[in-house]
């Protein structure tokens, strides 16, 4: 059981406990009896192939969708419609928390209203660093700048549980490096729980203290990243997370057959 208190003004990182979680989109099973935990105060990788269920899992943790079967506890509390919990969870992905057709200031004001630990100055500093023009509308930005905007809002929200779901899509290599640097610097300065969902495993695997590997809606490996890599290594050669994913993922032939 991994929990942290959510008392007023506290910035204690929030842990996540998931038990027996299943979710279907009609006849499609997105998650099947998922049980796992995210330790508070860690950076946990959520990895898997396309369609593995990463985005659905993140959406359920952030209460963007109601749980169908199973339980999701954040900080030891059910997350659905609890404002003291939802305001401390930030899920940043390619759409959602940003108002696309109004100036960026609108999204910053919304975050300032709803995020208890919002740092507006830090947000502006990040937008400046990522060279995001603040007077523009998000829908007018390039994909990379739009991603940088999302990353900046998520970092400046300083939520006790911050989830990045492929937030750096479209960012160039320099911007991604800047993002990783900012993430680590702010993570150290303001400890929180971070979940990173990414396909760029080679870039982020060194950031991940823990990892959860999903395949076709099921958890196929979870735990300390080094231990998971070690468990799937050959003698004398430490497996990368990409190697782990290749070993654990259902072959595409089996996926299409099913």
């Amino acid at each position, binding site marked *: 059981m991994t929990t942290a208190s959510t008392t007023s003004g506290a910035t204690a990182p929030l842990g996540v406990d998931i038990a027996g979680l299943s979710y279907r989109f009609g006849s499609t099973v997105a998650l099947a009896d998922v049980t796992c935990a995210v330790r508070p105060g860690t950076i946990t990788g959520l990895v898997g192939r396309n369609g593995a269920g990463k985005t659905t899992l993140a959406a359920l943790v*952030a209460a963007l969708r109601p749980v169908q079967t199973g339980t999701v506890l954040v900080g030891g509390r059910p997350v659905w419609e609890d*404002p003291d919990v939802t305001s401390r969870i930030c899920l940043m992905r390619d759409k959602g928390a940003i108002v696309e057709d109004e100036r960026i200031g609108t999204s910053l004001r919304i975050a300032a209203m709803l995020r208890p630990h919002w740092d507006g100055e830090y947000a502006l500093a990040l937008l400046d660093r990522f060279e995001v023009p603040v007077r523009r509308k998000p829908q007018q930005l390039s994909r990379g700048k739009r991603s940088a905007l999302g990353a900046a809002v998520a970092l400046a929200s300083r939520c006790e549980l911050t989830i990045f779901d492929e937030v750096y899509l479209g960012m160039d290599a320099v911007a991604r490096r800047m993002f990783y640097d900012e993430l680590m610097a702010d993570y150290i300065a303001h400890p929180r729980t971070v979940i990173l969902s990414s396909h760029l495993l080679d870039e982020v695997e060194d950031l991940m203290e823990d990892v959860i590997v999903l395949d076709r809606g099921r958890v196929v490996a979870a735990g300390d990243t080094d231990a998971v890599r070690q468990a799937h290594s050959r003698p004398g050669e430490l497996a990368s997370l990409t190697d782990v994913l290749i070993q654990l993922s259902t072959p595409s032939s089996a996926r299409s057959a099913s």
Partner: protein
Amino acid sequence: MTTTATQTRVLARWFATGSSKVLAFALAIATLVSVAVWALATVQGWTVPIEPVDGEGQVFFEFSTTAFGIPLAAVGIAAFVLSIVQTASYTRSLVASGATRASVAGATLLNGALMVVLVNVLAAVVLALEARFAGGWVGSTFGLAPGATFADGVPVLVHALGQVAFAVVAGMTIAAVFLRWPWWVGVGTLAIVLWGLPLLAFWFEPLAALGAAAVSWPGAMPLGVVALAGAYWVVMRGLRIP
């Protein structure tokens, strides 16, 4: 400790600030247009006959043509459009930013109530002006005859209060339905309500009589507003963010 009440209060204030700005802008623009119409009418020597109100159609006709009514109509339409646009534009972003659905629904309902109050305060001002100037150079929004007083238009004003509230809550509910379900659910619902039911009433006489009796009942409008607000709340509480 962040509570639903805290979030609702903060969001309602934010929505209300935005609504007030837009309604004030609509009022300013429409007043300019109205003044221009008045000046043109004065210069050209145009007159508009004043007729007593004998039905809702008459009210609407006068409403849209009177100089005082132009700002009122503009603000009323702006309130209806805002009720749709604010719900449609911000709900998903607010929920994804940590607000609960209950907070957003509560805040938008409070904001809707504020808009209804603002529109009706403006209507009262227009009514007072018309009571003062009715019979003069332009037609009457409320159908006031020359010599009529403010009190003569109050029943119409009270009826309009319910109509504006119904329109605003209906706008929010329509937006919520489109947010929660695929587009064809919203389109189908609107088609049934706006086209299917009237057609059914046309074919089935008892239904038409029942509808007419329900509409003429004094409690129909308040009950309709409450029922719509309840439906809006239920639809919003189950919202999924794709």
